[in-house]
């Protein structure tokens, strides 16, 4: 049986996607927070906590993911971070462990993440939409 390819999740949570880049300045090395979308924009996402069985399986394979985000398909890599803007996870930061593009025809991408303390940075930069 083929898996459903367009069983879209209801994306009722707003998030921001960013990566951290090291920059050398006069005062030494500083961290730049680079958003992967323009200023004053957000990304819609579906988010849920992984179930116990999913977490146990993840632990067995040494994968510490604890939250799943689903966003519209973008070239997201595992060195990016998620900042939640609305919902019960508001203001929390998550690191992406791995994007899951299993259903290639789907227009969505699943991101397995784990929570991290909020990052410290020196400068902010806004990029264009990540395609």
């Amino acid at each position, binding site marked *: 049986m083929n898996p*459903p*390819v*367009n*069983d*879209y999740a*209801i*994306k*009722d949570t707003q998030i921001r996607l960013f990566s951290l880049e090291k920059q050398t300045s006069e005062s030494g090395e500083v961290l730049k927070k680079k958003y992967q*979308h*323009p200023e004053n*924009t*957000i*990304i*819609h996402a579906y988010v849920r906590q992984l179930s116990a069985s999913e977490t146990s399986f993840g632990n067995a394979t040494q994968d510490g993911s604890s939250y799943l985000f689903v966003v*519209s398909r973008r070239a997201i890599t595992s060195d990016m971070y998620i900042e939640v803007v609305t919902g019960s996870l508001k203001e929390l930061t998550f690191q992406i462990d791995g994007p899951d593009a299993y259903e290639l025809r789907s227009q969505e991408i699943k991101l397995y993440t784990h929570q991290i303390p909020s990052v410290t940075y020196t400068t902010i930069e806004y990029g264009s*939409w990540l395609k």
Partner: protein
Amino acid sequence: MADQVLTTDQVKKALSVDDDFDIVELERYAKLVSSFVKQRTRYDCTKVETVHPLAIQLGELYVKQMYYNGSGDFNRNHDYTIGISSLIVDLQCIADSIKEAKVVDDLISEVPTPVTLDSAAAIVAARTAYDNLFEMDKDYVTNLSLLETYEETLLEVS
């Protein structure tokens, strides 16, 4: 007058898509919603000042139905059939009310002015037509204050 039932921004919000979503696709959805609502309910948004909330609600459900089930896969989490069919019936009633109210509005606007004793027949006809409307149809009559002014003037003249 409203151009379409849903603007592209409303479509974007209904679908929870990001700001970089294809604008051409959003415009296509907005046009399809307007034609669907007009065809199925006879509610013509181009003839009203503000789009009725039920029309907006129907449009949002229809656009979700198109977007989530458009590829031919049925998604059990996105079944809006019952909502759409019940809203169609509700909006058909509203479209009928607007049509009935339009008749009364036309009668009021056809009253010969300035108001004299000769206008009495037209004013009485308009008032009778208004009184014969159902209560919910009366909400859609826009020229009622004009009719009341005519009636006051007629009393002064007679």
